């Protein structure tokens, strides 16, 4: 999609989280949330971050997005430091976060509203293409209230894709959906995102669902409970498409569970 896409060799590092720590300040007493977290996300790979609930997975994702400043450590995307939210990083939210007063297309356009380099027609074109990739052709003028949960999340994905991001952050994207819908969307995730049609170079997924992670991820980063630190960083070398009923799959699931407990 993007004309000036940076050419990076497959396997090279796109996102670097470098010794990031975060403290919350509660009544002047610093409360550590993340302790010395480091990870790397390579080109064309999907990195999953998991950990016990409330451990700070989503907080880590928001640090990568530039929404929260870490107490120490740094985050790099393509060798430039992340200091604030930026155009080459997009995010898909757990609860979709669509504006109920705007149609599907207008919601996608909202993500493009800061792009002054594009004409209105170009924005329109981009938004329509993104909806198409996300599987929503024909639903442009529908309001979120009239869409099912799965379709709402597709709008969320389209909005994130339309901005031509290099890095796509997914914050528990399937956990607000019913099982069947989640299953279907999960199957399409890899092909929607890591796809030559899009600009996405790497995907970082936060999830507490271990099977989901083994189904999707090329790399798994396991965080411990509070304060969170990395207790495991594994390459998942299962071939795709992955058979969720195979023994190897279960071994991987067990491996991650044992790190979590």
């Amino acid at each position: 999609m993007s004309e000036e896409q940076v050419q990076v060799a497959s396997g090279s590092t796109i996102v670097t989280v470098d010794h990031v720590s975060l403290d919350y300040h509660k009544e002047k007493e610093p409360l550590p949330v993340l302790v010395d977290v480091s990870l790397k996300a390579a080109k064309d790979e999907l990195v999953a971050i998991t950990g016990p609930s409330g451990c700070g997975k989503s907080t880590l994702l928001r640090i990568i997005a530039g929404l929260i400043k870490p107490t120490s450590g740094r985050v790099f995307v393509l060798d430039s430091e992340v200091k604030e939210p930026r155009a080459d990083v997009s995010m898909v939210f757990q609860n979709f976060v669509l504006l109920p007063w705007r149609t599907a297309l207008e919601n996608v356009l909202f993500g493009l509203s800061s792009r002054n380099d594009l004409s209105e027609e170009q924005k329109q074109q981009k938004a329509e293409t993104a909806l198409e990739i996300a599987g929503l052709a024909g639903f442009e003028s529908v309001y979120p209230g009239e869409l099912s949960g799965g379709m709402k999340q597709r709008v969320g994905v389209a909005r994130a894709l339309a901005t031509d991001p290099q890095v796509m952050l997914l914050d528990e994207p399937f956990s607000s959906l019913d099982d069947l819908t989640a299953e279907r969307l999960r199957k399409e995730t890899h092909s929607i995102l890591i796809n030559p049609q899009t600009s996405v170079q790497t995907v970082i997924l936060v999830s507490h669902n271990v099977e989901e992670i083994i189904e999707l991820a090329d790399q798994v980063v396991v965080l411990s409970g509070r304060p969170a630190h990395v207790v495991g960083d594994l390459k998942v070398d299962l071939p795709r498409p992955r058979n969720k009923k195979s023994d190897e799959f279960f071994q991987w699931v067990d491996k991650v569970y044992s790190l979590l407990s």
Partner: protein
Amino acid sequence: MSLDFGLVALDIVSSWVRMVLAMGLSVVFALAVGIWAARSRRAEAIILPLLDIFQSIPILGFFPFVIAGIYGAIPNFVGANLAVIVLIFTSMSWNIAFGVYEAVKAIPQDYLDLLSVSRTTAWQRIRSLYIPASMSRVAYNTQISWAVGLFFLVASEIISIGQCTPASNCTNIPIPYGIGVGATNFPPASADYALLIGGIVVAVIIWRYLFLRAFALWSEKFKMMEEPREHHRDPITRFYSYVNHRAVSKLFLMAHDVGVSRFTSTISRFRKGLKYAVLIFLVFFGLLVFSSVSHSGGVNLGSAPSLSFIAQQEGGVLYALGVSFVRVWYVYGICVAIGLPMGIAISLNFKLYDTVSPILEVISSIPAPILLPAIVLIPVVGGMPEAVAAIVIILAIVWYIIFNVMAGVRTLPADMKELPSVYQVGRLSAWRNVYLPGALTGFVTGSITAIGGAWNALIIAEYFNPSGTPAGVLTQVGSGIGKTIVIATNNADYLTLTLAVVSMTVLIVSFNLLVWRRIYHHVTKRYTYNR
């Protein structure tokens, strides 16, 4: 210049005693009526529309009849106080009753089954389940009801002691002490008046934080369900997000069986019960007018006024009503210009919210009418009755908009507020596309309540000529329905009074049904955030 501490203290204590009595009465009434409506379908069909009527009419306009009726029957200290207490009661009981009704309705079926299985008596159920389950809502609604009640307390004290009009001799009804009495009797520029205002602020703070807040915290332990988000726990957000759908009259939901799903089953019953409720209300109102007129000596009963005289009076009433209508709307416009941006800006900043909201809560609890004599003292502005009236009304209603908008923005999901930064959307666009539409439901609810409040506030704001200022009328607008009502009240001109109150009520109710209901329906359909 010596300060009369004793008198000021007596004023405050007297008013507080009236408030506490009215509050106790309201809570008892609310528990009885709310539980009854929630547990009996037949009672529900009449009670809900009846409460709703009381919520939709300008209660203060009916007060002259209440005082004439009650004081006429019991023409002494007790009767006068009873009239004031009844008015405060009317202003706050419906709100608490709705809270009780909803709390009891929301009790999970499992609990009811448990009590059926263990064969408890009705009284045991009430004591062991219904009342405890309502406690948290009673406590929270009480905090807001207190502020509303204070406004009506002051207004009713001012109306009770009477105002001087060209035709009356300032005949006072014996309410010797009270904050509204003090504000009327102390000369506006006096130190005693200043002391009174200061005393009220202190009393409001102490009462709010030592009693109401403690009651609310204590009631927490009766809560049946967990509430998910921590930031919903502050009282403003909690109260107004509870109220969001409900404070708006159910008349609004009637034509469309959408809106709040919890009520949809109730709406058809509501519609059936409405005509009986209207009938009950009309009988009640008729009795009130009859008793007022008969107690005033029945002077007008012998010689019935001619039809052309009535028409002529009604013409004057309609003109005044038109003027007040314009006044209500331009003042509302000012309140929107202040309250909407202020409400959004405050709620977007957590630190600001935590500092500012308790201050706003206290200021909003200071009853606006009490400040009227002080406003008259402001140079230039004080000399313009139109400006004085506008300021009093603004101080009475701007809070509804600020607080409802604040609750609307605060209940937006946290990640919705991240959206503009994730996509680096500019501040202007974020306001236009996210915050303003996000606040819209709360804003419309606040607007409906504010307009209702403005009609009540008019009755104090348009004409103020207390007996304590013999120098002449303190302030009066050129024309207005509030002025018409006050003058008719003091002249015991029940024909004009009835015409004025009925015309005003008809205007307000039809405006609600024809205009606000449509807006409300559209906004809740499109602008409510549902996952």
